[in-house]
């Protein structure tokens, strides 16, 4: 929680700014859409956090989003599979990818960066080849299935705001992952493994298995996220769908307090990290800045944010130290 304070502060600052200067920022529909996008990206970011906890990294998230996302309409529309077969197939394929990464990393001891970088190229390549670089979409069909991402729920007593359906899986995942790391034995083992692998091994912890499972989890979430993404946008091109999503996911996780050295996680932080990125992007349009500036603004604001966060942290810890000294 303490680790998340920084990103929550950054988020609030941007939110307040956007409310003041953005047109129609505080409208139900905008908040709804922000919630939707945050939920989608949060699912990827939670996945990224799973492997970051182990001290690893997954650069293939964007490509798995692409492959899983593209495969869904490809099977449904081109091959006319039933949704009941497609969803499990896509999820199993994503989990298989994670398993493959995990085994290469834990058994063959290859560097996670390298393995998942190859993955980044490989899965996108497969998606492009499989579809012959053709856009894949639902052609207006399977509206019911797509409700998983496009559905909206009324909240009793609240007007002008409908809750996007994606919030439900995102919230469940967040809670499960949060509980997993703070309350379960395995979560604790993973935290220990992430920071000091040999200490964990000496304590009899099956580190290889746990790390492998983390990669499975990450790819599974990426695949699940990819499915929801394409349900949401209804069609995608294999060559650009999901490009750079791994960076957004990792950025959200790191902003949210996961150290890339491993062993740290804050689920609340990760979600606020994802939300911050989305609010920033929307703010740029609603405030009326040119979209050419989007990248520059996001980069500058994040950099300022983390630098300020670090500055404040240092200032506080110095104050704390001094007051502790005064007490003695």
């Amino acid at each position, binding site marked *: 929680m303490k680790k998340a304070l920084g990103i929550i502060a950054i988020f609030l600052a941007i939110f307040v700014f956007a409310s003041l200067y953005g047109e129609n920022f505080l409208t139900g529909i905008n908040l709804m859409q922000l919630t939707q996008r945050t939920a989608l990206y949060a699912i990827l970011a939670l996945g990224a956090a799973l492997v970051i906890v182990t001290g690893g990294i997954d650069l293939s998230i964007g490509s798995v989003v692409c492959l899983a996302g593209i495969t869904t309409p490809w099977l449904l529309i081109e091959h006319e599979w039933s949704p009941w077969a497609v969803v499990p197939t896509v999820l199993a394929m994503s989990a298989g990818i994670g398993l493959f990464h995990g085994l290469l990393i834990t058994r063959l001891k290859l560097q996670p960066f390298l393995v998942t970088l190859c993955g980044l190229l490989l899965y996108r390549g497969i998606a492009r080849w499989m579809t012959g670089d*053709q856009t894949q979409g639902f052609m207006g069909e399977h509206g019911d299935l797509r409700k998983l991402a496009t559905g909206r729920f009324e909240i009793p007593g609240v007007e002008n705001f409908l809750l996007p359906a994606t919030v439900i899986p995102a919230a469940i995942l967040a809670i499960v992952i949060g509980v997993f790391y703070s309350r379960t034995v395995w979560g604790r083992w993973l935290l220990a493994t992430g920071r000091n692998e040999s200490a964990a091994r000496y304590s009899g912890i099956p580190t290889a298995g746990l790390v492998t499972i983390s990669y499975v989890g990450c790819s599974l979430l990426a695949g699940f996220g990819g499915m929801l993404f394409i349900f949401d946008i209804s069609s995608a091109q294999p*060559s*650009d*769908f999901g490009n750079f999503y791994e960076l957004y996911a990792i950025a959200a996780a790191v902003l949210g307090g996961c150290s890339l050295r491993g062993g740290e996680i804050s689920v609340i932080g990760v979600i606020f990290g994802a939300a911050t990125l989305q609010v920033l992007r929307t703010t740029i349009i*609603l405030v009326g800045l040119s979209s050419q500036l989007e990248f520059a603004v996001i980069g500058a604001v994040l950099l300022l944010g983390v630098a300020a966060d670090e500055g404040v942290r240092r200032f506080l810890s110095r104050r704390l130290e001094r007051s502790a000294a005064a007490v003695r």
Partner: protein
Amino acid sequence: QDGTAKLVAAQKARIEAYKAKPEAKPHVAFVSNGVADFWTIAKAGAIAAGKQLGCDVTVEFPGGGLGDQKRMLEDLVIKGIDGISVSPIDPANQVEVMNLVAEKSILITNDSDAPKAPRLCYIGMDNYEAGLMCGKLAREGTKNGAGGGKVAIFIGRLEQDNAKRRRQGFIDGLLGRTPDPTRYDEPATVINEAGYTIVGTWTDSFDRAKAKANIEDVLIKHPDLALMTGLFEYNSTLAVEVLRQTGKIGKVQLAAFDEGADVIAGIKEGFVLGTVVQDPYGYGFESVRVLLAFTKGDMSMVPENGVINIPAKVIKKDNAEAFWKDLKAKIKAGKDAK
């Protein structure tokens, strides 16, 4: 289809209502399908129209594909824009977001049409037609020489509808087939027809270094290549560059697309057959003009079939100079407007 008709009717009703009470200072938007010079010229047109006719214009270039375009359209709607002209990346699958725009605002399309969407009109040209022009240009160029030979096609990517149509047009034009926009030749297969061998289509996902490498590598693989075409602006520009660097000028013909500076220079020098140019400035200008008229309750400039045609042009040695001057003036106007 029912829903589409309803949305069209709703938009028309909204426009009708503007007759009584026109928007004070309308705000319209122009959304491209990516980032390119083509679109900066269109932007110049849009902004010039905004200045000339008196309205606010927002121009957005989605850099990240379909997802990005969807997000921008949603955000513009939230912002409360009066009308949007969009170049949809994948019309068949973007029905929902276009419905959203039509529901809350007014929707027209440019550059790439979405006839099934509730758009009130389309501003642009037919990419198949333009491709056909380029193909004919290539056919003439090679007929003057020996005729026939190996042909290579370079294009940024093939996913988008306009790219597919443009490529197909080129092929049909080159091979002298009867035009049929619904035809589709698989990119992976080698076509042997009418004395030509189309050895392949190479894509690069907008990575120029990769695009250049593609051309270089294909020239190595096929030293006897007779003709190539770059169907996106930079493909042609890079083809000119590679021809210069490898000393293949005159040995390999080039039928170009769009108005890259190097391409125009090559046409003037005489080693580029010619280029097919669209009028992005016109797309931008017309889009704003039409949308603005809507906010005043005026629908008169929309023809019966909903297509406002701004045809492509073939630039050859004789008209290159004049075209280039005019273009520079337009770009400058666009920049100053910013």
